[in-house]
């Protein structure tokens, strides 16, 4: 009787699903992993930041250097992200809609920032614009400082975050092909109208994901920026750099206060992404159709 029942239960399960204990085990492992790797550190950050009371927390954030770091980080993101949106759109457009020689090479190049250590990308700019280079003194003679100043930080950030938008858009645009654009053109739309009314709406969700990821990385970038910024307190120190400096000075509370703000920005990004998915899920599905 019992074996019969078990056989029936077994049969009811779809061939690709696992038995209950295996399911629980797999879910358990992933939850445990997430707790140790993600939730625990996040908790530690906020716990440490608030350990000396909410007053100290806000005092640390209100400090002049911290304020400067926050402003600089936001400014860098505000310049780097829009530029990467333009570059990413142009690159993925070219790759997805046209056939040309060296296309595979271009795709590989776009991935380069992912495969190169950020420190090296920073060093490249030091070599390009440093005192011993050709470009550095040349620009300096016109009063333009690149290294240890905002332009260098922006350049390094753009380099590191370049792939996010393009990577998100290339497969999407390749998948969609050029049919919709041809249809729009045949109906009399000019190039600009086709882009605004057909191409852009078709990729808007992918673009938004790319922008959110790009933004999160732009604000959090440490390695490349550390090399080019020179870490001048209150001037070229971004939030991640400021966190490190404070921590090295045994000012743990202030370091974690700023760190928690950075983590919060990342969380907001994720929440925003999920909210958009939830709100426009149907439309996103239709867009990917």
């Amino acid at each position: 009787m019992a074996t019969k029942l078990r056989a029936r239960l077994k049969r009811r399960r779809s061939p690709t699903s696992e038995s209950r204990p295996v399911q629980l085990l797999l879910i358990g492992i992933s939850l445990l992993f997430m707790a140790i790797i993600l939730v625990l550190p996040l908790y530690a950050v906020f716990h440490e930041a608030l350990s000396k009371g909410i007053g100290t927390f806000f005092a640390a954030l209100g400090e002049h250097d911290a304020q400067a770091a926050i402003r600089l980080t936001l400014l860098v993101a505000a310049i780097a992200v829009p530029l990467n949106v333009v570059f990413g759109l142009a690159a993925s457009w070219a790759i997805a809609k046209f056939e040309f020689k060296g296309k595979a090479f271009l795709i590989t190049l776009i991935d380069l920032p992912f495969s190169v250590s950020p420190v090296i990308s920073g060093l490249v700019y030091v070599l390009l614009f440093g005192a011993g280079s050709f470009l550095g003194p040349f620009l300096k003679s016109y009063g333009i400082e690149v290294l240890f100043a905002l332009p260098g930080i922006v350049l390094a950030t753009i380099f590191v975050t370049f792939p996010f938008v393009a990577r998100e858009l290339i497969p999407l645009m390749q998948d969609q092909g050029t049919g919709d654009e041809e249809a729009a053109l045949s109906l009399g739309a000019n190039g600009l109208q086709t882009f605004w009314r057909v191409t852009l709406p078709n990729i808007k969700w992918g673009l938004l994901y790319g922008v959110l990821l790009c933004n999160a990385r732009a604000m959090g970038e440490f390695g490349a920026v550390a090399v080019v910024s020179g870490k001048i307190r209150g001037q070229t120190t971004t939030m991640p750099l400021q966190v490190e400096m404070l921590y090295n000075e045994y000012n743990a509370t202030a370091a974690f206060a700023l760190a928690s703000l950075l983590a919060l920005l990342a969380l907001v990004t994720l929440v925003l992404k999920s909210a958009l998915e939830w709100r426009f899920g149907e439309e996103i599905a239709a867009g990917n159709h």
Partner: protein
Amino acid sequence: MEVRVQNVRKEFDRFPALHDVSLDIHSGELIALLGPSGSGKTTLLRLIAGLEMPTAGKIFFGDTDASEKTVQERNIGFVFQHYALFRHMTILENISFGLKVRPRSTRPPNGEIRRRAMELLDLVQLTGLEKRYPNQLSGGQRQRVALARALAIEPAVLLLDEPFGALDAQVRRELRKWLREIHDRTGHTTVFVTHDQEEALELSDRLCVMSQGKIEQVGTPDTVYDHPTSPFVFGFIGESSTLPVTVENGELWVGGRAIGVPAGDATPGDARLFFRPHDVELVEADASLAGVVSTSRRVGGTRRVELEIGGAGHHVEVDLPFDHPAGEKTRLAFRPRRWKLFPAA
């Protein structure tokens, strides 16, 4: 609008897709470009549309040279095989797109655009679906929206690229009939590409059979079916059987036997005989094509018999009524009622 394609050549990366093609499309006709894949039919359609530019040659719309005009300037309606509807727009927005993107000076007022879009929606029998999105419609409905969208700009020429290719057989037949009705009502000069000969024969006023980047034959469906001018057309349109024959003494010979078919004015020597499997008569006489039945199967209302003729292993097919007593025999003798001779390849 009359369309004239004049000595058009098209190469892709130096690989020729069309060789010196000329075609006159009459005003108001429904013409099919028919051919196997790779025959250049879609390339020709896209050249007429302006989605591709010819390597050499000219395309005239009426008396004006359209070769140098962009796709926007040509004012054509193009219907794509996979519909290419704008997925983020409602059906109504899709249909009005072509009018909405016009420059202000030629754009009708919004109310007028809406009225015309609704009218077209009615024409394609989709009234009430204007607020839906493309992914909420069936394939057949989407293709009808695509047609309405193309008609909205009052195109000089309507071009359809395998319009029913992605649909199942039944919807295909329905839409075919419906497209013919729309054409008769609106009178647009229409060119459509298909690889389905049945579709082309049933739907078109004239058809243009293409193969390997060349036009093989242009004519009414009856002409092309009854009087194919090349072995390719005979083989591609309708069922056909073929056999190598010899022309001698004003008669056709197979394996040293006269087959009772007069050669007419064909030049003596080797030739190929083409005939339709259903267009044969069974005979008892000596002078006939006789063969051993190698397979025999019933297909619906007919019985298709494959015969091996002579010792050289040539096979031909003939059709018999399914209940014909000859269907039981192991040997059959027949003569084609209508046939065509082409020089040996």
